[in-house]
């Protein structure tokens, strides 16, 4: 069975640009979450979506936005990129994103902002 997939794997942008990252959850999973992982730190929660609705948002500025599509795939958008946005962006999926469900992470998208 295919796991969580993310695209692109790597991306280089310059300050002020906009970026869109994509995630496809495991088949049957309806919840998608996004995390940012800066080098040397643990992942930080950005968003969770379930059934196309935003269920939770972390402490990130409004430059970060996301959406979930009817097929449960998701996009993360970041506007007006800053150098500090350079990180590994992780997507995780789970069945419903509740209780003690296991979240399955994708390989991530490595974003470098110059």
């Amino acid at each position, binding site marked *: 069975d295919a796991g969580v997939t993310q695209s692109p794997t790597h991306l280089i942008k310059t300050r002020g640009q906009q970026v869109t990252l994509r995630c496809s959850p495991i088949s049957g999973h309806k919840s998608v979450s996004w*995390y940012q992982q800066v080098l040397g730190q*643990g992942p930080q929660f950005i968003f*969770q979506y379930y059934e196309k609705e935003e269920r939770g948002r972390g402490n990130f500025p409004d430059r970060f936005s996301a959406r979930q599509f009817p097929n449960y795939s998701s996009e993360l958008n970041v506007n007006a990129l800053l150098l500090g946005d350079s990180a590994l962006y*992780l997507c*995780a999926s789970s069945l419903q994103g*509740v209780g003690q469900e296991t979240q399955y992470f994708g390989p991530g998208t490595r974003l470098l902002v110059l």
Partner: protein
Amino acid sequence: LAKTTQPISMDSYEGQEVNITCSHNNIATNDYITWYQQFPSQGPRFIIQGYKTKVTNEVASLFIPADRKSSTLSLPRVSLSDTAVYYCLVVGVDSSYKLIFGSGTRLLVRP
């Protein structure tokens, strides 16, 4: 959600058993303890989850004392490929969609 504290790093040798302890003094009644493993430039991978006493799977064991204020991840007979960062998380039933990661424990397995 309860804050977790775990060692920053640990060293071991191939074939040894490794125990990583995590403290979570403010764990709530309905919280679970979950461990993830992460290799460089990869997403975290679920290892094991438990509520109390002992849980064992094909990869690891998780020991949780009666007061649940700490937990120990046990990796039997580690190999070089177990070199990774290990994260201890407390997962709340009501807000488990939001995983809160600390800095984790960097385990280095030497030949």
